[in-house]
């Protein structure tokens, strides 16, 4: 790359990604350092290979003009949906969740998780849709097309079932609608059925929520039909929640239950959460030292190289380490937001913000679940967790974001 090109790149984005990548690789190396034989011992080397592939894909994505990408978008989106359907039909499981169908395999070799690709494709499709919407959506009816675009892959992923990724689609949708200028209160109304669903386990809090919702509806004065729909949906959600609960897979139920109370069954269901909290908590302020965390070394911490790599940071590097990680993620997100703000066209702008929304959802969900603020849903932490498809997609989004930054620099926009 020549210097002109380097100058066109977003330096803050590069720096934060560089440090996140190094930090992540170091922790992945540490997660393989155990006293108990583990498959995680050598994954850091494989991860370097994936990083290499990811950076190559990022370079390719950087070459891709946003215009060309916008033209490609419907095709990519359709292809993603096709892959998700295919996964449901012939997908295979992995590891502990072998009952789920989230992998596509060819000849017994797993080649990737289509859900990760679908996340990017959905971002692209939403960006295209919202960029071409002339007026800012003001009613729930206006939000329907966007909801369908995000909803289709969401449902397909949820059927695998992969609850963690499904939630990411919600995060992407809300982030992009928000960025497109939709009134946050309207978004709250849209999210209200899900809130009803979650609160319906306690009749008192659900009743309180319905009252609050009614107050919001009266205050916002949307169309009568719309208000009635929202209100009724909430009521119905509250009523059918138990039916839906019955349809969840047992391990999903257990995970939700142990999120509410990890001590119900400490040996089985609550094990992940308890050991994760013990690992992070026992790190204290400065941590036990790089590679010497006992929770990890002696295999108390499950999935320490994938979903539960954050507790390794907490245990070995303490509060200082986790704060550093969060600061890096925050600066990465801020860099993305700045790139989005300076974007030359609304498609690129929404695209980059959608990427930020995806990364944000992953970080909040992953870190939140390791400290018991979120239910355990099995979701990787960007740049830290080991995993092929997700690593490649992350790097690809950075290539796309840098292209947008480069375009805006060359067009004369400056921060």
């Amino acid at each position, binding site marked *: 790359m020549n210097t002109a090109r380097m100058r066109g790149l977003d330096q803050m984005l590069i720096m934060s990604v560089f440090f996140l990548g190094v930090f992540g690789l170091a922790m992945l190396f540490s997660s393989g350092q155990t*006293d*108990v034989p583990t498959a995680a011992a050598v994954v850091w080397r494989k991860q370097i290979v994936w990083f290499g592939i990811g950076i190559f894909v990022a370079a390719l994505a950087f070459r891709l003009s946003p215009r060309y990408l916008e033209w490609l978008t419907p095709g990519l989106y359709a292809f993603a949906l096709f892959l998700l359907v295919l996964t449901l039909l012939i997908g295979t499981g992995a590891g502990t969740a072998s009952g789920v169908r989230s992998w596509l395999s060819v000849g017994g070799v797993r080649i990737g998780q289509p859900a990760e690709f679908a996340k990017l494709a959905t971002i692209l499709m939403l960006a295209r849709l919202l960029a071409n919407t002339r007026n800012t959506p003001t009613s729930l009816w206006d939000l329907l097309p966007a909801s369908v675009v995000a909803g289709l892959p969401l449902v397909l992923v949820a059927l695998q079932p992969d609850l963690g990724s499904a939630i990411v689609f919600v995060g992407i949708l809300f982030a992009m609608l*928000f*960025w497109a*200028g939709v009134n*946050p209160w309207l978004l709250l109304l849209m999210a209200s059925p899900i809130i009803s669903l979650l609160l319906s386990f306690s009749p008192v809090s659900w009743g309180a929520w319905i009252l609050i919702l009614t107050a919001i509806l009266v205050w916002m004065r949307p169309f009568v039909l719309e208000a009635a729909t929202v209100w009724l949906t909430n009521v119905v959600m509250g009523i059918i929640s138990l039916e839906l609960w019955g349809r969840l897979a047992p391990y999903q139920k257990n995970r939700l239950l142990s999120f509410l109370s990890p001590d119900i069954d400490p040996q089985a269901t609550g094990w992940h959460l308890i*050991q994760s*909290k*013990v*690992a*992070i*908590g*026992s*790190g*204290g*302020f400065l941590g036990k030292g790089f590679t010497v965390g*006992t*929770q990890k070394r*002696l*295999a*108390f911490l499950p999935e320490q190289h994938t979903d539960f790599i954050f507790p390794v940071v*907490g*245990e070995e590097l*303490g*509060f200082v380490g*986790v*704060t550093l990680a*969060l600061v890096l993620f*925050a600066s990465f*997100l801020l860099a993305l*937001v700045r790139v989005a*703000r300076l974007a030359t066209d609304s498609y690129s702008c929404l695209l980059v913000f959608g990427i930020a929304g995806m990364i*944000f959802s992953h970080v*909040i969900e992953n*870190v*939140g679940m390791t*400290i*018991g*603020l979120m239910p355990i849903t099995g979701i990787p932490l960007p740049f830290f967790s080991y995993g092929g498809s997700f690593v490649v997609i992350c790097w690809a989004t950075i290539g796309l974001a840098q292209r947008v930054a480069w375009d805006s620099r060359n067009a004369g926009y400056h921060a």
Partner: protein
Amino acid sequence: MKIKHLERILSTCFVLLLLGLVYLQIVEGERYRKQSDENIIRLVPISAPRGSISDRHGVVLADHRLTFDVAIVPQETENLAALIEKLSELTHADKEILLSTYSRNVSTPFMPATVLEDIEKETAIMLEERRDLPGTMILITSRRHYSYGSDTVHLLGVISEIPPKELKRLRPYGYAFKDLLGQGGIEESFDNYLRGTGGGTQLKVNSKGYKVATLGYRPATKGKDLTLTVDIRLQRFIHSLFDGKKGAACVMHPETGEILALVSSPSFNPNEDFSTFLHAEEKPFLNRVTQGRYPPGSTFKLVVATMALEEGKITPDTSFRCSGLFQLGDSEFKCWRERGHGEQHLIEAIRHSCNIYFYRTALLGGAELLASYAKLFGFGKRTQLELPYEAAGLVPTPFWKRFVIRERWYPGDTVNFAIGQGYLSVTPLQLLRMASVIAADGKLVEPYVVKQIGSLEVKGGRYHLLPISEETLSVIRQGMIEAVNTPDGTGQYAAVEGFEIAGKTGTAQNAQGEDHGWFIAFAPADNPVVVAGIIVEFAEHGSRVAPLVNNVIARHLLGDDYQEGAYQVELPADSAPASVPIIPVPRERPN
């Protein structure tokens, strides 16, 4: 506007995460640190060898025997079912039993779980040498072994795994799950000294409980060895005399209170599985010496005599006439000899064990006075011998009867009291101590059985000098000497050549069957060094016990010179004093 919202949402989310982390790592950090340490550290206890128990001459009564157990280490075993199968083939033990023992004992992967206990040494060596049994190991453990088995079981007690109920109470004193606890006897009352301090190994384990490193080691300290005052040769001899019959015998040094032998029969062998005896009708678990409660019968006449002499109610020369029958109000009380003993003074009355004489004497003093003298001799109170669950017995008083039986005290009750029947109940140990008071010039000694704890000598021989005059004691002693050493004495069959025995018979009325026979004695009469108290249940009368007593005393005094069979006396069945059934006392008319 949009950016401001965004900033707010972003910072709220990140601050929430940070707050969660602050809570976990800073606020609760210490607690989680401890929890993570507890996660990885396990303590494998090493039990301390229990102290041994030996007799006064250093003969070991209880110690350890090495045994070989087969155990399986779960973390080193690949195929448990196949291993068990092979082990069952090699040891000829049932597969099911091996498996059930294993599943009962298995705890954590690094702890060997016993599958078969106490195998032959040859089998153990054979298993040890085999290389095709991965995860199998031979544990050399020690088991409590009682060298004299059933001879000493009531004295020593047994040990067993601590019952869950007891554990709750004893946990603050350092007892843990599966610890051994003494049950009954010395094992129980001296458990604290005998059990020693356990050691342990600190292990670092992983999440599956597999051992990854050893962190620390503390050896166990052996418990204290105990030396008893008991002479095991005498103890065995007495037990063999009982030959399984029910009864109890206790031999003591009258001056020091050292227990020389303590035998309760029937007995059981503590080295074998004795659980079947738990509910046996003969009650082999009962230590009859300290827990058996019997009416003292005629032996109590010595207390009546002491009371009357000390209180000046009679003199040694006071004589009463015995016609064989005694009228009290509407009731008649008989002497054991139907034709009566005629005119006799106190020493003669003791010699003949005349009921009538003591009816009259007791009535002169009254029940209150009699009860207070009984208490003076230590009845109704535990002797504080170091064995658990001692019975206190009962000394009735008019006050007691009013409040417990809810009846008034009749003169007939006093008459019963005088010949040691009715409500009065004593343990053989208490009765022995009464005899020792007479033998040791009024000293009520504190009996003790543990002579030495470790290298520490127990200071024994403590006594309480009773306010009984030397004259009184010598009169009663004379009565006891004559009871054994005159042809018409009730204890004549206890007489032996070579030394003078003083003694008194007694017959304890037994509503359940034949009466129990008592005999208390000391020797040599002029300078007693041994006092014995024996009860044989269903012996019908005290004189039947006499040949037991003389053999016991001879065995002790002669030591190894004692020759078996030298003192066998043929018992004439008809001449022995039987107890007289008490005629129910009719309610007296108030007038």
